[in-house]
């Protein structure tokens, strides 16, 4: 059967027959790789340019259509030694990088203005205590205005726009007091300059913007970094499907390019690329990623199968359907919608602070003005003092307090193999007091392994594992992971649905079903009591071995669950698998609280019940059936092997075969939360010291500048301790 490769959905067509494509490249580690890839590709006829972005691990290629095509470029990269995957950038990512550039431009403008205004201000402060004439001071103030006004109008846009949006929605956010403070400070300064006054606040206003923009930029940079990484992972994991065209031709297309109604061929060992109905062939499928069930399900024409399950034995032809009424996917999506609405009610620490902060600040400023008026001060003086209160309370340190800690904690989590989907996940992780685990793929490894408990001659196991390299059967794939020698035997023949055979040292070796190996089936299964294992048989030169393959626990699962309970967390297992499979796992981990055979709706019900008891649930799960529970939980984690929909609803993803990231996530977040609270306390102390001075009318621009940068610096330094801890 002929097979073509269709990558058109990733290729951008340019003018004059030129095309452009972005690829995520795996395994780029050093300077040599850049050289090898770029020169290797540009040497190809038709390739106009190839440029590797080493930070993002992405390769941009331009070529002429009439000489080369996308599939040949990927093949060429594979020959050089790199696996590359076409990459379709998501809209969010493009928006983020435009936003980051804009913020950086604003930051640069604010920085330039702050430096130059400060240069003039320091001269005025020095002049005020020596022999500066009034004319020179006025000139310097006007010069400051000339720099500060346009700079603030430009660099303040992120705050002004956000404040306007909030006010239109009749709400208050942190940007309202910021915008008000900056505008009033600038307006007052112009008025004071025009009336030849001694003090002007241009420096305070522009410096405030500069510090606040740093906080904003850090916040965005953190989100961008994790999104970028997640985007690469998504394309490295992207699945391909074999679509059967009307002419009967087989086309290899990205799973994302499938449409309802397409016919798709799923070979044994391949993952089902989309939800659909079987229209031809019969097989067994492994649905552990979908339902958590580890026993295989038999499917034939008319059965509905779900994306993410693995086809075990025979080739299937399926027709792609959209999520229809009554299917599991439809139920999961309906539950998700409800769960997500419930979740948006949790409020972030920063938001809670703002809600308290803004009215207090504005009330204090108003009361100050009224107080001074009643005490007999002139209207001018009262307003000047009230504005000084607003400037000094502008939440510079508060705005930096949380993003800086988040940024550093997220970096620390990232190094531990945890990718956050959002900065506020850190706060919620720190507050969780109950951990609910899914079993299949979360407590256990995502792929089955050879059960080491049963003593099999290592030499025989090695031979069997090496032979397994030649088979696509999922059990054989699991066995092949045990092979030390990574090169398959030459001349191995696979008999579809039965096994593989090859000549080793002149005698035939067979690996596959018991029947294929000529062994009676009953005797070996009886010898193995556990229903959770599957078997694969190997015979060679009269020796026979029955190798049990099963889901095994993540190697550090016991240590991590013990450590979590020691930290006062209540642990629970909620699984969609059978009770016989869940009980031994819960037993090994010492978790007494477990439920098996749950549907997605029942999982949510259990979590809701825990919520009613006042518990904050951290849900760790990977299956499609876990997605609603993840969304319903207070905070959620998923291994990177999770189903696509599940990943999208988890607050963070973790990489690798270990469960340790769950523990690390909790520890780092708790520490980060302590630091955030310390930072808010530092900002509050600063206000407690500075506000009385401002109310008393004693704040000069010099005091404002020193207090503001001092508190910002202190908060940032304190945030850096999140790094020391890890």
């Amino acid at each position, binding site marked *: 059967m002929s097979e073509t490769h269709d990558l058109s959905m990733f290729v951008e067509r340019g003018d004059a027959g030129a095309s452009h494509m972005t690829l995520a490249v795996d395994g780029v580690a*050093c*300077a*040599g790789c*850049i*050289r090898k890839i770029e020169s290797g590709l540009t040497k190809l006829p038709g390739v106009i340019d190839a440029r*590797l*972005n*080493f*930070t*993002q691990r992405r390769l941009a290629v331009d070529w002429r259509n009439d000489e080369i095509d996308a599939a040949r470029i990927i093949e060429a990269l594979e020959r050089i030694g790199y696996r590359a995957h076409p990459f379709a950038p998501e809209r969010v990512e493009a928006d983020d990088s435009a936003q980051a*550039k804009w913020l*950086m*431009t604003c930051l*640069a*403008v604010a920085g*330039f203005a702050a*430096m*130059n205004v400060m*240069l003039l201000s320091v001269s005025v402060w020095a002049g005020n205590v020596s022999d500066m004439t009034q004319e*020179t001071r006025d*000139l310097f103030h006007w*010069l400051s205005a000339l*720099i500060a006004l346009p700079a603030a109008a430009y660099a303040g846009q992120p705050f002004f726009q956000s404040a306007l949006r909030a006010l239109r929605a009749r709400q208050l956010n942190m940007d309202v007091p910021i915008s008000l403070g900056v505008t009033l400070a600038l307006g007052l300064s112009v008025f004071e300059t025009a009336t030849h006054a001694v003090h002007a606040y241009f420096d305070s206003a522009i410096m405030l913007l500069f510090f606040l923009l740093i906080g904003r930029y850090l916040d965005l940079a953190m989100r961008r970094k994790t999104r970028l990484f997640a985007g690469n992972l998504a394309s490295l994991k992207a699945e391909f499907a074999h679509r059967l065209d009307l002419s009967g031709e087989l086309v290899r297309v990205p799973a994302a390019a499938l449409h309802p109604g397409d016919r798709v061929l799923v070979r044994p060992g391949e993952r089902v690329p989309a939800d659909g109905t079987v229209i031809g062939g019969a097989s067994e499928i492994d649905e552990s990623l979908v339902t958590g069930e580890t026993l295989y399900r038999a499917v034939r024409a008319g059965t509905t199968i779900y994306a993410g399950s693995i086809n075990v034995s025979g080739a299937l032809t399926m027709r792609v359907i959209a999520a229809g009424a009554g299917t599991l996917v439809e139920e999961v999506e309906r539950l998700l919608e409800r769960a997500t609405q419930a979740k948006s009610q949790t409020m972030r620490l920063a938001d809670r602070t703002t809600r308290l902060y803004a009215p207090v600040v504005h009330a204090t400023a108003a009361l100050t003005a009224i107080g001074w008026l009643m005490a007999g001060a002139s209207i001018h003086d009262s307003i000047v003092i009230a504005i000084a209160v607003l400037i000094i309370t502008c939440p510079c340190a508060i705005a930096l307090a949380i993003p800086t800690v988040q940024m550093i904690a997220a970096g620390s989590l990232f190094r531990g193999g945890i990718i956050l989907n959002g900065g506020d996940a850190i706060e919620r992780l720190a507050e969780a007091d109950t951990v609910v685990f899914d079993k299949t793929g979360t407590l256990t490894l995502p792929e089955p392994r050879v059960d080491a408990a049963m003593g099999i001659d290592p030499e025989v196991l090695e031979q069997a594992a090496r032979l397994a390299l030649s088979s696509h059967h999922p059990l054989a794939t699991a066995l092949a992971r045990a092979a030390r020698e990574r090169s398959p035997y030459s001349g191995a023949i696979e008999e579809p649905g039965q096994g593989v055979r090859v000549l080793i040292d002149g005698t035939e070796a067979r690996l596959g079903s018991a029947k294929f190996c000529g062994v009676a089936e009953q005797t070996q299964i009886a010898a193995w009591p556990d229903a959770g294992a599957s078997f694969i048989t190997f015979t060679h030169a009269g020796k026979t071995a029955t190798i049990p393959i099963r889901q095994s626990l993540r190697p550090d699962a016991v240590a991590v669950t013990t450590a979590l309970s020691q930290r006062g967390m209540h642990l629970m297992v909620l699984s969609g698998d059978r009770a016989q499979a869940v009980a031994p796992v819960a037993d090994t981990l010492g978790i007494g609280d477990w439920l098996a055979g749950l549907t997605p709706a029942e999982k949510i019900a259990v979590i809701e019940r825990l919520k009613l008891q006042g518990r904050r649930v951290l849900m760790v799960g990977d299956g499609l059936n876990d997605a609603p529970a993840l969304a319903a939980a207070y905070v959620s984690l998923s291994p990177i092997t999770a189903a696509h929909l599940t990943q999208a609803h988890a607050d963070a993803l973790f990489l690798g075969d270990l469960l340790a990231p769950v523990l690390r996530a909790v520890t780092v977040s708790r520490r980060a939360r302590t630091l955030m609270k310390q930072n808010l306390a530092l900002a509050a102390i600063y206000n407690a010291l500075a506000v009385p001075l401002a109310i008393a009318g004693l704040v000069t621009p010099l005091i404002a500048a020193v207090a503001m940068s001092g508190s910002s610096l202190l908060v940032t330094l304190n945030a850096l301790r999140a790094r020391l801890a890890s």
Partner: protein
Amino acid sequence: MNVLIYLVPLALLLGLTGLVAFLWSLKSGQYDDLDGAAVRILPDDDVPPSATREQ
């Protein structure tokens, strides 16, 4: 103090030059691949072989 008439515009001009240079470098994508810039300096195969052999 008349020297200020030259010095203040000069200081502003220098500052502005810095700002414009930074914005230009940002716009031309010089900060898009910071790690790459650090390692791209290492390979020396752009130097003609004759130049290294003469050492």
